[in-house]
């Protein structure tokens, strides 16, 4: 799997390269700013790009903006955004157009090596990976009245769904059976007035689209 990295911290860039290469990924290019990222992606056509949110010159949300351009110009390239802090507003921007092949994680998650690599693989394969902290922000945001109809357990399930986990992943996390999870999910869809859909990805898409459509 070929990856392009955009990260301005030299230390972290080197660390990520080492981590990915020891784990069987191929790092096609590693750059230090947003413009370089767009050029590197155009040149190397990677499966996924790992993008830092804060980058030169402004050190604000260059990464988010670059990711948005990337998704428009190279929709086939998945984007995993890494940030020192997560903000639901950035997530909403990122997910507004398309929720496949997108990830948004706290940089801290890199420390959990296997979890991070799982998320990267999921995103590169066209799935979704959202930081639990973003998910809780998305779920708690205002105007989300329909969510108040959910039971605490259903909210937990929805949060795990939004992170991009499968039924079995959710069942394992909550230590219940898969059939119980399936029942919860059906309840959630019913309470949120969502049509039935198949597969992890479409389900996440539906949930996020619901959350997102609410904010505008």
């Amino acid at each position, binding site marked *: 799997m070929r990856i392009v990295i955009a990260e301005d911290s030299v230390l*972290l860039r080197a660390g990520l390269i080492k*981590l990915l290469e020891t784990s069987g990924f191929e790092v096609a290019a590693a750059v230090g700013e947003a413009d370089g990222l767009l050029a590197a992606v155009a040149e190397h056509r990677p499966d996924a790009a790992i993008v830092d949110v*804060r980058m030169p010159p402004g050190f604000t949300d260059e990464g988010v903006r670059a990711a948005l351009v990337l998704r428009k110009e190279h929709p086939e390239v998945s984007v995993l955004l890494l940030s020192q802090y997560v903000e*639901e*507003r950035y997530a909403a921007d990122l997910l507004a157009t398309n929720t496949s092949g997108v990830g948004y994680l706290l940089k*801290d998650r*890199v420390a959990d*090596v296997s979890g991070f690599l799982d998320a990267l693989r999921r995103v590169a394969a066209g799935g979704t990976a959202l930081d639990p902290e973003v998910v809780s922000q998305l779920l708690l*945001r205002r105007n989300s009245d329909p969510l108040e109809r959910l039971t605490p357990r259903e909210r937990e399930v929805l949060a795990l769904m939004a992170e991009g986990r499968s039924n079995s992943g959710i069942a394992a996390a909550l230590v219940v059976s898969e059939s119980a999870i399936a029942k919860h999910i059906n309840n959630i869809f019913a309470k949120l007035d969502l049509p039935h859909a198949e597969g992890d990805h479409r389900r996440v898409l539906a949930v996020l689209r619901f959350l997102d459509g609410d904010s505008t």
Partner: protein
Amino acid sequence: MVSSSAARRGLTHAPWSRATWRDSVFVASGVPLQLAGWAAVTLPWLVWAASEVTIILLWLALPVVGVALLARPLAAAHRERCWAVLGVDVPPLPRDKDASPWDVLRDLRSRELWRLIRYHLVVGPLIAVAGLAMVASWLMGVALTTVGLYAWALPADSPLSLVGHAVRVGLLTGAGVVVLVATPFLAAGVARWDVAAVRSLLGPDVTQELRKRVEDLAEKRAEVVDAADLERRRIERDLHDGVQQRLVSMAMNLGLARETLKDLPPEALQVIVEAHEESKEILTDLRNFIRGLHPAVLEDRGLDAALSGIAARVPLPVRLEVDVARRASSTVEAVAYFVVSEALTNVVKHANATSVDVAVLRRGDVLRVTITDDGRGGASFEAGTGLRGLARRVNSVDGTFRITSPRGGPTTITVELPCAL
């Protein structure tokens, strides 16, 4: 006592005393300046009577030129005279130094210029008349007292010759002495009048000075507050781009070690595991600390985005309403953010509440922040709940801070922040 102080007064105003000469020189030196000021305004009209209708406009404008060119330099000369002769310091007008004469034309409507004109045109000429009277009084006094000295030189048939008119000469000499004794009082009076007039009309207006000073101080304080805010953002950046990156890198290496070095002795692996967990906790603490300092998202996306971020982090349902059509300055936004953040921390820690309402509304030039919780109330400045720090920070931008918190609740904090600078 009374007689001695009267005697002293008599001595200070004796014709030969230093005070008398100072006052007299002061008054006399004022006369040409005062007349010049008056002439500057009126002379063009006196020496040239315009007849042609087209020229009349020019004729009317001439005094303006006189004012433009001379009002300020003459005022400066008067102030200089006060300082040089009496040691009375009248501060210059605020714009005196770098004002070109043409600026005067521009600010013909300013109160300041009209105060100058009032002196040059009305008060000055009156003082000049009094000054001339004083000069005349001195001359007459001297002439009369000394009449005996030159009376002998006059022809015998003069009405003042000593021969045959000794009584008349004696009376005139006496009158001269009276005039000489009285003139110092006239000089002192005119001098005092002039000084008062120069101070009030040619010096800076006290009210205006105070207003200006208040403006200056407000501006300086705003600079200090902005500087503190800027510093907070600088620290936030440094932590994000320095310490945090290195910590992430370290945690990642520990994580990699933990996953790959499975064949280590269990004790060694345990050390790595603990270090890894510890580093992740430090990262979480650091992230929360930085967000409390100054959230980067506040700068990028404004209050709405930053506040929904904190609302989501509070372990209570928070109803958040943000209606800010025009963004306030970054300092005001930072204060509003800090208010909500601290207030929510307080609610979580002390209020025992089940829900919180936060509203941030901009109405005109005021940003109003209200935080209401349904907790137990009884919050006060004394309880050490950080309310004092909140009020201080609100005060630093001239905001108002109100709290109502009856025992049993609910508690409402209302903060109003002015957005216009």
